[in-house]
């Protein structure tokens, strides 16, 4: 019964993560994106903790705490500061045709459900049903990176993709080994700083953060 209830909670959290992934796809304002991203991290962290509690795997607590610190507080804060410094908070991004994007998103969810169905039948883990959601989150993150034009939103898409990978690890094998997770966390943090530096560089070079400007970076005929 205990385990069943934990499975229900992870199910709800998986649904919430999926919801935030969709919300990231449709949100136009950059601050809104940051909030949603922080919420996604929070759900991820809770779900890792719940899985850790119900399976008795200690290292999941550490991942959960790491996720909480990094993805709910640190990264959104860094991005917030970046946005503030770059003075792009007023920018409302033009998103390509939201309904179409959402329909593609739905198709991706169905596709990932289809892809993970063999795993679901073989696995005996409590979290096996959330694997489809994890894969869908990865794909939705990629979709977001494809459809957005602003560099900052692209980074958020990338981070959300990473969230999906983390969730996949939790649901497929109850998390990666701790060393790997620590390494990934460090990578993400460093990546965030590098992004920041790059943003300033892009900004000073092109006077805009619209990645359309990068189209100029090709060899002239």
């Amino acid at each position: 019964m205990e385990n069943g209830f934990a499975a229900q909670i992870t199910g709800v959290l998986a649904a919430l993560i999926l919801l935030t992934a969709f919300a990231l796809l449709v949100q136009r304002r950059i601050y809104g994106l940051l909030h949603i991203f922080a919420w996604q991290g929070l759900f991820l962290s809770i779900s890792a903790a719940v899985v850790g509690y119900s399976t008795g795997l200690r290292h999941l607590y550490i991942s959960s705490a790491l996720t909480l610190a990094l993805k709910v507080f640190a990264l959104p804060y860094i991005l917030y500061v970046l946005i503030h410094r770059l003075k792009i908070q007023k920018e409302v991004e033009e998103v390509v045709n939201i309904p179409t994007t959402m329909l593609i998103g739905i198709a991706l969810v169905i596709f990932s459900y289809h892809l993970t169905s063999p795993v679901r039948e073989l696995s005996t883990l409590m979290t096996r049903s959330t694997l489809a959601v994890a894969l869908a989150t990865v794909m939705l993150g990629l979709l977001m990176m494809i459809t957005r034009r602003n560099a900052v939103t692209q980074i958020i898409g990338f981070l959300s993709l990473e969230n999906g990978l983390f969730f996949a690890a939790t649901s497929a094998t109850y998390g990666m080994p701790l060393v790997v997770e620590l390494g990934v966390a460090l990578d993400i943090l460093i990546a965030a700083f590098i992004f920041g530096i790059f943003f300033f560089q892009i900004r000073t070079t092109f006077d805009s953060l619209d990645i359309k400007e990068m189209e100029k970076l090709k060899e002239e005929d």
Partner: protein
Amino acid sequence: MTGQFYPAIIEGVQVATVLLAAPLLVGWVRALKCWSQGRSTAGLFQPYRDILRLFSKDIVLAENASWVFRAAPYVVFGATLMAGAIIPVISVKAPLAATADVIALVALFAIARFFTALAGMDAGTAFGGMGSSREMMVASLAEPALLMSVFTVSLVTRSTSITEMVRVLSTGPFVLRPSLAFAFLSFAIIAMAETGRVPVDNPSTHLELTMIHEAMILEYSGRHLALMEWAGMMKLFLFSSLAIALFFPWGIAGMGGWLAGTAGLAGLPAAFFFLALKLALAGVAIVFVETGLAKMRIFRVPEFLGTAFILATLGMLSYFMLE
């Protein structure tokens, strides 16, 4: 011996509740709104006074209004009240509940909408046509989303009959269901659109470019207007009751659970209490949303309803994926 009349009594009580409590709900929402904006209210009972006053007023008909215009208020009122007899507002024992399942219920509201839209076009004004056109646009986008939302609930309960849905949801073991949460969010968005509340339509405006429902009933007066207004109030009441029945059914009488347990009439007082409580909270939620949001441009509405559709679809997907 009198037990055999219980179903008829319950049905009568329910219809009376729908008729009489609908203006009260609207009054409650208006009063809450006034308080939240620091204005003084006209009182909870102002909608009753409005309706009564309209009934005694003369009717001014547009010169070229046809019988469709004169018949529409009665048909709209009739279809809405019929819906009120079917939704289990206070008890699942109402005998007319089997008349229509949730799909047919949606179609009953569609009849009302169809005739309102026709009435809007009858006088031959620009406003009326604009209202009809917009109303039908909103409806045609809301309907698929509504169906998906209802469909998710019917997946969980394996039925489309509302009383059966209520029974399964309120007597089964408590399970956390993300699918129902999604379906509820989607239903809430659609209900806001269908009942003409703020982000989609503004019930208290006569600004030509913002109105939808008001534009259609612009030419009405006297008892026709009273019936139209009353039907509109009942629609708000019924969508709230439907949301309660589908997503928060605990406390509706006649199920034999630990709440409002016994069949027959004994469960009714408790059912009334829970209904009043839930509707009051629904009113608070409506005011909360309406105060927090601005009315959107008409061409933002498709996106808003598209969100409802995606939410409902996510609900369905998460039923298959996570439950």
